[in-house]
C-alpha cells in the first residue's frame, strides 16, 4: 500500500489578538500541533476526538482550505504546501470535501444542477449537454432522481441535501475526499444510509477517505484505520480492530469505554476507564503530555516531556509515557 496523502509536522496556529488599541498577538491557539500521519490509497482513515480538538481543522488543512502554519503535505508523492492558487488547481480536482451541515453547505440560490455542475465549470467544462449528462449520472449515483436537478436546496430533507453535497464533491472524480462529520447532523436512520452510500461510492470509484466524526460506532463501521486526536495532537493511531479491541492510550481507552453497550450482560464487563473534567484550552495547553490533567495514570514525567508517537506494534502508534515506562 502506498500512501496517497502524507503529512508531517503539520501545525495550524490561529493568532488570537487581545482587544484594545495595540492589538498585541497573544499566545497562538494551537488547533493542530505537529501532526504527522499518512493515508493509504483506497483506505478510510477515521479521525475521532472531542469537539474542538482540531479534527476539522486538520481535514481542512489537508485539502488546503486553510494554510498550515508549519509542516508539509505530500499528495500522491508531490509537495502541495506553498503552491499558489494556479498551481493548486489540478490538485483541487483530486481532493474534495463533504461537509457536516447539509443546510449551510448548499447555496440556497442555486438549483441542484448548478450546484453539482459548478466544479466542472470551474475546471473548464461548458454548461452543455455533456455536463448535464454528467450531473444526471452523478445524481443517480448518489441516489437522487434526475429530476432533482431543477430543484432548490430548500426543497430537500437533510439526508437528500447531504446526497447533493456528495454529488458535488464527487463530480470531479476526486481520489481523496475529506468527510467532515458528514452524518453528525442527520437522523440516525438517515445516517446509516449516508454511511452506506459513502462506502458504496468508495468501492465503486476507488476513493480514499478521511472520515472525521465524534461518533465512535460510525467510525468503527466505515474506517480501516482510526486516529484519535486530543487537543491538537494525535495520541493514538492504529488499525480499526486493534484500536477497538485493545486501545493503548488512556484517552482512547476512556473514549471507547464511554460508548454505551446495548447488551446488559456485557455491560460493565472489562475495565471501564472514566475521565472527568473538561478538555483544557488550546490557548494554554498543559505542559508535557496534553492529557496529563485528566489522565488516571499520570506520572511525574508526563508533566515535563511530551511523549512522541511511537509504534508499539506494527502500524499501531501511541503517544504515551506508559508505553516506554512499561518497556523500560
Amino acid at each position, binding site marked *: 500500500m502506498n500512501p496517497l496523502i502524507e503529512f508531517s509536522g503539520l501545525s495550524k496556529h490561529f493568532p488570537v489578538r487581545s482587544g484594545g488599541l495595540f492589538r498585541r498577538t497573544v499566545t497562538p491557539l494551537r488547533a493542530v500541533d505537529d501532526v504527522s500521519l499518512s493515508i493509504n490509497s483506497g483506505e478510510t482513515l477515521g479521525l475521532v476526538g472531542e469537539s474542538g480538538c482540531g479534527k476539522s481543522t486538520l481535514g*481542512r488543512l489537508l*485539502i488546503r*482550505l486553510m494554510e498550515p502554519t508549519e509542516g508539509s503535505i505530500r499528495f500522491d508523492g508531490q509537495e502541495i504546501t506553498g503552491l499558489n*492558487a494556479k498551481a*493548486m*488547481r489540478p490538485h*483541487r*480536482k483530486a*481532493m*474534495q*470535501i463533504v*461537509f*457536516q*451541515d447539509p443546510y*449551510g*453547505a*448548499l*447555496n*440556497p*440560490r*442555486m438549483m441542484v444542477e448548478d*450546484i453539482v455542475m*459548478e*466544479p466542472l465549470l*470551474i*475546471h473548464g467544462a461548458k454548461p452543455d449537454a455533456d455536463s448535464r449528462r454528467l450531473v444526471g*449520472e452523478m445524481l*443517480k*449515483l448518489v*441516489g*437522487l*432522481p434526475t*429530476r*432533482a436537478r431543477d*430543484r*432548490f436546496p*430548500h*426543497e*430537500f*430533507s437533510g*439526508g*437528500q441535501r447531504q446526497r447533493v*453535497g456528495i454529488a*458535488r*464533491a464527487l463530480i*470531479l472524480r476526486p481520489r481523496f475526499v475529506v468527510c467532515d462529520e458528514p452524518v453528525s447532523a442527520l437522523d440516525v436512520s*438517515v445516517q446509516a*444510509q449516508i454511511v*452506506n*452510500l459513502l462506502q*458504496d461510492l468508495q468501492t*465503486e470509484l476507488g476513493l480514499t477517505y478521511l472520515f472525521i466524526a465524534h461518533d465512535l460506532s460510525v467510525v468503527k463501521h466505515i474506517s480501516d484505520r482510526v486516529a484519535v486526536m486530543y487537543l491538537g495532537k494525535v495520541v493514538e493511531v492504529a488499525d480499526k480492530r486493534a484500536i477497538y479491541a485493545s486501545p493503548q492510550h488512556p484517552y482512547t481507552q476512556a473514549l471507547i469505554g464511554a460508548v454505551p453497550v446495548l447488551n446488559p450482560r456485557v455491560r460493565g464487563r472489562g475495565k471501564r476507564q472514566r475521565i472527568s473534567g473538561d478538555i483544557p484550552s488550546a490557548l494554554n495547553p498543559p505542559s508535557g503530555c496534553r492529557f496529563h490533567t485528566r489522565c488516571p495514570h499520570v506520572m511525574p514525567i508526563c508533566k515535563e516531556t511530551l511523549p512522541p508517537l511511537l509504534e508499539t506494534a506494527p502500524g499501531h502508534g501511541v503517544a504515551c509515557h506508559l508505553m516506554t515506562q512499561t518497556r523500560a
Partner: protein
Amino acid sequence: MNGPELVAVRPAADDAPLEEEFEVAAKRQAPWRMTVRRLFRHRLFLMGLCLCSIILLAGVFAQLITTADPVRLAMRWRFRAPGVDGFVFGTDNFGRSLWARVVFGAQLSLYIGFSVVLLNAVFGTLIGAAAGYFRKLDNALMRVNDAMMAFPAILLAIAITAVLGASTFNAILALSIVYIPRTARIVRASVIVLREMEYVQAAVAAGAGHWRILRRHILPNAMAPLIVQLSFLFAYAVLSEATLSFLGLGAVPPTPTWGNIMAEGRQYLVEAPWIITIPGIALMITVMGLNLLGDGLRDVLDPRLRIQQ
C-alpha cells in the same frame, strides 16, 4: 456505471419520501417567486406600494398630466386657492400652477432618489464586498468609512454642496457621498458572514477564483439586506434632497423641487398655506410609502426578523 448491487445496498426507503415531497413541491416555485408572493400578502407593503405608485406615476408622466408651465411667471393668477379658477392645487406667489410644480418636483425627487440609490448600490456594494471579502483591505476601507460616518448625514451633505455649489448634480453627489459608507457597512457585514459559509468553502475546494465566489455565491446571498437598506435609503435621499433645496443648496430655482417650493411658501404661510402644505404632503406620502415598502421588504427578505415573528 450504476452497478446493480449499489441499488440493492441502498435502502429504497429514503427515495420514497423524496417522491412524496416532490408531489408537494410541484406547486412550489423558485425562491424569488415565493418572495414576491409573500410580499403581496404583506398588508403594509401593499400600502407602501400604493403610496409610492402615486408619486411614481405622477413623476414619470409629469409631462402628460400637466398643461401649465411650472416655471413661467403669471402674476395675474397669484395666490389662487386650490380649486379656484381651475387650479387644482392653487397657485404660488408668482401665479405658477402648484399642481405643475409639485408634479415636476416629484419627477426631480425621484430622479435624485434613484440616482443616489443606484450610486449606492454600485459603490456601496463594491466597497463593502472588498472590505468584507479581502480582509487585508478591511481596516483601511472601514476606518475611512467610520470617519465619514462620524459626521451627521445632513450636515456633511450641506458642507459638500456648499463647497461644490448648488445644483441637482451636486446634490446627488453629496447625498451619495454621505450614504455610501452606510451602505458599504451593511454589505460588508453580510459578506463577512457569507464568506465563512460551507458552500463558499466548497467552491474554494473546487478551485473557484475570487470573482466567481463573489459573483455566484456571496453577492446573490447578500442582496436581501442590501435591497432593504436601499429602499430606506431612497426615502432618506428624497427627504435630504428636500432639506438641501429648502436651504437653497439643491436644484437652482426656478426649477421646482419640493424643498424650494416649501422654502418660498414659508413666507406666505398665513396668506397661502397651501403653497407649503401641498409639497409637504407629497413629501410625506413618498417617505411614508418608501418606509412601509422597506418594512415589508425587511419582514420578507431578512430571515432574522422573520424568525422573531
